[in-house]
């Protein structure tokens, strides 16, 4: 492989662009997305519904819908100093790559399991498809993982999906996702559709698991508090682009993009009173014909003629904190003024 990655990088996405071909035109769901994921790191993708977060994550395991086309970009995956371009894997290699290297916990685990097979069978299917043959070894590994997600392993292992609650299924899916020791686990809205207490349990379980098994996490959420708690890095996605990317503290305390700022002021915090909550005016843009220039300008308080004409590049200001905005300085000033 020509690409050489730093040894601690497991995943590198370069200029990834994806469109959905539809009757009404091409939906530009992902535009020039680039990021790196380091070993053992957790990265959050935040943004409104329909911003393209899920498209990015589906592309990582090449599980995009049939009408999606990757128009440009590369996805590199590194394990033990050997690098693969995920987009160039053959069907066979791709099948082996999935779950073994990169597992995905989909949104809503309610129907993630085959209703007519026991959980045991579904663990065995997964392992056997990836070359495991010893059922006792599979069982041992599965039970220890089920223990890790705080379930009664013996009981759950022999159960049918309909005998389990939603929170239990979500936790089983988490356990299943790390069965083959992947380096990357993608979590798409891991706690949506669960009650507050179960959400809490899932987050604790995730933290435990990551500490013990040391995999990298990409998770998608519009729950900012979850992102703040779990992530090392946060990427804000707007209209298919990453508009801001940085460490979790940078994003939450020193955000440099008005959209991120807008997301943050639309959720209550412990420090501020309720009347300071603001929603972002307007609605997400039409991705078939997105606005010229900065795609956020129709909804942005700082927008001027420059924003309407040219799209701002994703550039570094301090350290590794990137943001795509022409008016970072004005944003910082306005924040200082309001505090």
């Amino acid at each position, binding site marked *: 492989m020509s690409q050489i990655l730093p040894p601690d990088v497991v995943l590198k996405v370069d200029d990834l662009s994806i469109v959905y071909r539809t009757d009404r035109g091409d939906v530009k769901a992902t535009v020039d997305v680039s990021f790196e994921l380091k070993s053992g790191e957790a990265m959050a993708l935040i943004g409104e519904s329909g911003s393209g977060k899920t498209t990015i994550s589906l592309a990582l395991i090449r599980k995009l819908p049939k009408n999606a086309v990757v128009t440009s970009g590369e996805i590199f995956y590194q394990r033990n100093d050997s690098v693969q371009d995920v987009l160039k894997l053959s069907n066979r290699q791709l099948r082996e790559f*999935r*779950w073994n290297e990169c597992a995905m916990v989909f949104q809503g685990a309610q129907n*993630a399991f085959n209703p007519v097979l026991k959980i045991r069978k579904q663990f065995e*299917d997964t392992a056997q498809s990836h070359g495991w043959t010893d059922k006792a070894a599979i069982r041992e590994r599965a039970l220890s993982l089920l223990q890790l997600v705080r379930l009664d392993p013996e009981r759950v292992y022999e159960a049918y999906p*309909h005998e389990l609650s939603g929170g239990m299924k979500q936790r089983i899916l988490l356990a*299943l996702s790390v069965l083959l020791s992947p380096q990357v686990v993608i979590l798409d809205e891991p706690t949506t559709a669960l009650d507050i207490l179960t959400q809490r349990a899932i987050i604790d379980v995730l933290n435990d698991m990551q500490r013990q098994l040391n995999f990298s996490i990409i998770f998608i959420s519009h729950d900012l508090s979850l992102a703040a708690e779990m992530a090392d890095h946060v990427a804000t996605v707007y209209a298919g682009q990453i508009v801001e990317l940085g460490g979790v503290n940078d994003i939450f305390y020193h955000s440099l993009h008005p959209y991120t700022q807008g997301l943050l002021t639309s959720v209550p915090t412990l420090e501020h009173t309720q009347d300071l909550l603001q929603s972002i005016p307007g609605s997400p843009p039409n991705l078939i014909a997105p606005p010229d220039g900065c795609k956020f300008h129709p909804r942005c308080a700082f927008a001027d003629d420059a924003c309407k004409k040219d799209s701002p590049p994703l550039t570094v200001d301090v350290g590794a904190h990137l943001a795509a905005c022409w008016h970072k300085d004005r944003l910082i000033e306005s924040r200082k003024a309001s505090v």
Partner: protein
Amino acid sequence: MESRSLNARPVTPGYNKIIDAIRKALKNYTVRVFVQAILTIWAVATLTFLLVREMPGNPIDVLIEQILTQEGISYQEAYDRVAASFNFDPNASVLDLYLDWLTDLLRFDLGTSITSPGTEVIDEIARFLPWTVFAVGMGLLISFVLGIILGMTMAYYRNSFLDHSLSLLSSFMTGVPNYIWGLLIIIVLGIQLNLFNVGELRGTYDISLVPGLNAAFVLSVFKHAALPIATYVIATLGGWMLNMKSSTMGVLNEDYVNVAEARGLKDNRIITSYVGRNAALPLFTQLTIAVGFVLGSGVVIEEIFVYWGIGHYLFQAITVRDYTSMQGVFLILTMAVVFSNLFADLTYGLLDPRVRVSGER
């Protein structure tokens, strides 16, 4: 007050115990559906008993008419001769006959034929039924398996040329009734194209052969059953294909199939255990309903191909108004339908754990 009202209706403890035992037994699902099945069979049997007797003509009249036209003797002479050779009294009360028949039935005695006294109906059924079970069973098995495979193929290649042409074909196959298919096969393949000799295929096997497990006999059995089987397959295949296609398309959209692919499962495993098994579930219920339908319509098919199964026997019995034989056949057909439904009811849980009845795992 209370004690008085209790005393007002003295109930013997033994009677109470029996009621309790019945109540308890009926709580068991298997017992309940079994009792329902028996009641259904009894109701249908009673209805057929009355209906066959309400048909115009009776066994004696039918034969008397034949003799009268052939031999030109007086009506009374003909009546005496026929009545003497028949096991039938046209003046007996229907209620008495019914009660007799019912008590015999409890001993699994279907009585003797009216038109040929001394022939046990149950023996005749035992002689003819296996052939029908063989032909209908083979036909349904082949069309079910083929339908599942083709239906899944259509769903996997939906909107392709293959899908469109198979859809058209299956609609056509279901739309044309099975007796038309039977006639088409005889006329087009047998007579016009002369692919086989229709006359040679009468009966269920070549009577010059000795029944047994030898190649010539088995081959002959299949040869004679081939056309009825082909008819059953053609007439039912389209339905399976269309049902399986829509069922598979539904399952393909399920999350668990998507997740299975993300889990990197082998294609074969996904197609069989994740898509196929779930998509075929609703078809198993339809299969048991089809058993009844095909058995019933088999009467005409067997008559068309002169295949000597239970349908052929029933047809003969109807022609001469042989009440006991008709009742016997109807009873057996009813039992086949009811018990195949019962079987489906009790075994569906093995296929789908979600409908497993609580208490049995």
